[in-house]
C-alpha cells in the first residue's frame, strides 16, 4: 500500500465507478484497475470501499450484474451500466464540471 494516493472525495467514487463501467461490463477487480488506469494511478480503490459502493449502486438501480466466466475461467460477477445508470452518469458529470469550474475560479480569484 506504499503508493501515495489521493483520498477520494465524498461522492467521487460513485462517479468514477459509473465512468469506469461506461465502456462496458467489468468485474470488481476490473473496475478497480480501470479506475486506476483512467485516473493515471491517482486513485486506487480498495476492495473495502469498492464492494459496498458497487452493491449500493446496484441496489439504486444504476448497475445490473451477471455471473459469467472470468479470464481465468472462474465464476465472476460482472457489472453493467443500466439506462438509469447512464443517465445518472450524465447528470453527475455535469454536476462535477460545474463544481470543478466554480472551485477553479474561486482558487484563481
Amino acid at each position, binding site marked *: 500500500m506504499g503508493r501515495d494516493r489521493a483520498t477520494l472525495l465524498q461522492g467521487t467514487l460513485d462517479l468514477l465507478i459509473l465512468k469506469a463501467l461506461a465502456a462496458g461490463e467489468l468485474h470488481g477487480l476490473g473496475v478497480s484497475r480501470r479506475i486506476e488506469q483512467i485516473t493515471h494511478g491517482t486513485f486506487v480503490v480498495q476492495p*473495502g470501499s469498492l464492494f459496498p459502493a458497487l452493491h*449500493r449502486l446496484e441496489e*439504486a438501480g444504476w448497475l445490473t450484474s451477471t455471473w459469467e466466466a472470468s*479470464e481465468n475461467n472462474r465464476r465472476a460477477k460482472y457489472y453493467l451500466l443500466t439506462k*438509469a445508470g447512464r443517465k445518472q452518469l450524465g447528470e453527475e458529470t455535469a454536476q462535477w464540471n460545474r463544481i470543478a469550474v466554480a472551485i477553479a475560479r474561486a482558487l484563481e480569484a
Partner: protein
Amino acid sequence: MAGLPRLRSLWRNLAHRDRVDRDLDDEVRGMFDLLVEEKRRSGLTPEQARRAAALEMGQVDVTKARVRDARAGAFVDGVQQDARYGARVLRRNPIFAITAALSLAIGIGATTTIFTVANGLLLRAAPGVAEPNRLVDIVPTMKGHFGLIFTTYGIYLDVRERITTLQDVYAYELEPKPVSLRAPRAASRDGAEGAERVFSGSVTLNYFEALGVPAAAGRVFGAADGEQPGAASLVVLSHDYWVRRFNSDPSVVGRPLQINGQPFVVAGVAREGFRGMSVAAPEVWIPVAADAAQLMTGGRLKPGVSRAQAAAELNAIGRGLARENPNRFGELEWGVAFSSPLPAVVRGVAVAFIGLLMALVAMVLVIACANVAGVLLARATARRREIAVRVTLGAGRARLVRQLLTETALLFVIGGIAGVALARGMTSLLLAALPAFPVPVNLFLPLDGRVLAFAGGLSLVAAVLSGMTPALHASRADVISALKDESQGPSDRLRLRNAFVVAQVAFSILLVVAAGLLGRALGRVTTLEQGFDAQGVDVAAIDLSMAGYTDDTGRVFAREFVERLRRLPGIESATLADRVPGGPLQMEATLRRRGDPSAAGSTESLPAEPPPVPWSANLVEPGYFKTLRIPLVAGRDFNAGDRRGTQPVAIVDESTARRLWPGQEAVGRFLPSVPGRVSAQDPAPRVVVGVARDVAQSGGATKTPALVIYAPLQQVYGPRLTVLARTRQGQRMAREIRALVTAMNPNLPILAAHTLEERQTGPVVVQLRVAALVSGTVGLVGLLLASIGIYGVTAYAIGQRTREIGIRMTLGAQRAEVGWLVLRQGMSLVGIGAAIGLLLASAAGRVLARLLFGLPPLDPVTFGGATLLFAAVGLAACYVPIRRATRISPMEALRYE
C-alpha cells in the same frame, strides 16, 4: 426514482439472505483469485502472490460487513442481530426471562381480556349483520332523566318518515318476552305435546332487511308483509332455536304455531350467527304491535353521512314534532350512537363497570411493568462491565439503548403473545363464571383485529415505559468506574429500584383490598343475613296471562294449584308469590300517608308533603312465610278467609312497622294508602294482620331501604307468579311441578325452573361476582409479583452490602443485628408501599361503597387482613436474603473484591 429496484433488493436481502451472503462470498473470493492470478503473471511465486493479494484485499470480514451495512434493510439486519443477541442473553438467564415474561403475560392477558369484553359489548355491532359500521342506535334523552327512554311505534313511524340522513330505520323491543309456544306434534323434534317457553322479540317488519340479515330457510319479514304492524301473524325462528327444537328441519317453514294461544305461521329461519341486536337474544321474532311502547330504534347512516349530521337532523325533526304535539315530544333530545350489543341507552352503567374492571387489571400490568423494570435495572447494574467494554469499543449510546430496548421488547413480544393466548382462556373462564341468565344471552367476544392491535400496542407501550429508564441508566454507565469493577453502583439506581418496589406493593395492596371489599359484599348479598332459608326450595316461574287467565279465573287457578301442589309427595310446603326474596327489588312508587282511622287526628300533625319513601309490595298465597322460613314476629299469616270481598289485610316487615308506627304495636293498624296496584284494587284501608322478620333487600345501593308489605294474592291479583316449593329432603321437584302445571293447563309454560339458591343472579350479584373474581385473581397475582419484587430488591441490596456486612461482623456485630438490618431494609419498603396503598384503597373504597350493600368503605376486616397479609408476604420475601446475610463469612466478604 429508483424506488422499485430498491424495494426488490430489500425483499431479496431479507427473504434470501443466505443466497445473497453466498454470492458476496463468491464475489470476494473471485476477486482474490483474480488478484493472485495477476500477481503471478507479474512474476511472483505462488506464495508471494497470495501474500500480496491478501494484503491488497485488506480485511475481508470488514469489507463484507460494510457491504451488508450498505445494503437495503441494514437497519432490519441490525435489529435482527440485536434480537438474536437479546434472545441469547435471555436464554442464559431463564429464571429471569420466565418470571418477567410470565408476569407480563398475566398483566397483558388480563387487560386484553377486559378489552375483549368491552370490544364485544360496546365497540362492535352484534354479529351477523351486514355493514355493521354504518349501523347506529337512535337515542332519545331527557334533561335530568337518567333512566331508559324508549320510543313508541308512533314515534318510530314519525322519525322514519321524516329522516333523510338515515336509511333503513328499524325498531325492536329491547327485552325479549317469555311466551308460550305450541308446535303441532309433527313439527317438533321429539313430538312432545305441551307448551314450551320461548323468548320472543318484537321487531318492525323491515328489521331483517334493514340489518341485512338473510334467511337460512324460508324467508324473513319483508316490506311485502304489509306496513300494518301485527297484521301478518308470521314468526321468524332464530337459527339456534330451529336447530335445537326442530332439528334443522326445513319443512317447518309454513307450518302453523301457537304463541300465547294465538295462531302464527313460520315464515322462515334467520341466518346462522344472528341473535338479535342486543345482548338479550330472542329465540323467535314476531312483528311488533302497534301499541308497542318500549322500542329501541336504530338505522343505517347513508353513505357519507356522519353521526353528528344524523343527530342534527333528528333534533330538527324532534323540534318539529314537539311543536305539533308537545305532550309526546316535550323535552326529548336526540342523539345517534354507533350500534353495539349493549344499546346506547344502557351503555353508561356498563362503561362504568367495565372501566372499574379495566382499572383493576391495568394495575396488574403496572405492577408487572414495575417488576420487570426493577429486574432490568438490577441486570443493567450487573452488566455494567459488559456495557462499559462495548462503549470503549466504540458502541454509540443510541445503539446501546436500542440493544437494551430490543432485549426488553423481546420479553414483551413473548409476554404479549402469551398474554393473548391467556386472554382467550380467561375470556371463556369469565363467561363460565357468569351465572345462568333467565334470558338467552347473545355474547360474542372474538379476538378480532382490534383486540390484537390493543394487545400489541399495549405491549409496545409497556415495553418502552419499563425498558426506557433501565436502558438509559445502563447506557450512561461511567466507563472508568465500571471497568474498575467498583462494587458500589450509583445510589440513585437503588433508589429507583426501591421506588419500583414501593409502587408494586402499593398497587397490589390496593388490589387486595378491592378484592376483599368486593368479596365481602358478594358474601353479604348471596349468603349472609338474607333473612330467609333458600336451601331446598324449588322455584318455577309462570305467567297466567299467557294461557289466557283473567283477573277472576287466575285467582281460582292459583288457589287450586297451590292446594294440589301441597298434596304432592315430597313437598313440605308450597306457595305462590309474585316476587322472589333476594331478587331484584322493584319500587312500586313512593308513599304518601292518608288518614289513618286507627289514629284519628294524626293526619293534621303530619307535614303536608312528607318525603317520598320507596316501597315494594309482594303478592303472596298463604304459606309464603312458612315455605321460606321467615319468622312472623307478631300476628298471623294470611289464610283462606283473606279473599276478595273480605277486609283487605297486609303483613309488613319489622322495619316497616318500626318506621310507620315507631314504638307501637303494628298489628291492627291501617296501612297508609299507597299508589300503584295494591291500593288501586283496595276498596277500603288495608289492615295489618302480621309482622314478619326483615329480609335483605338486594340492590341495597339505595340510601333509604324500601318499605315492604305483603298482600294476599286473592285480594290483589297479579298474573306473573313464582312457584315456591320446599321439598322434604331437598330433592329437586322441577319435573313434578311441570307435570302438575301441564296437567292443569297444557297451554301454560314453565318460564324458568331452578332452585332458590341458583336464583340469586340479579344484575348486581352478577356484577359483584365478576368484579370479585377479577379483582381476587389479579390481587393474588399482584401479591405474588410484589413479593418477587421485594425479594429481588432485598437480595440485590445484600449483594451490594456484602462487604459492609462483613466489616460489621468483623467488628463484632451479632447475626441477629445483621438480620435486623436486612429486615429493616425490606420491611421499610413494604411499610411505605402499604401505607400509600392503604391510602389509595380508602379512596377507592369510597368509590366502591356505592356497590357495597352497607359495607363501610373502611371495612376493618378487609383493611386489617390486607395489612397482615402484606406483613407476612414481606417477611417471607425477606427470609432468604436474611439467611444469606447472616451466613456471610467476614473473611470471604472482605476478600470479595
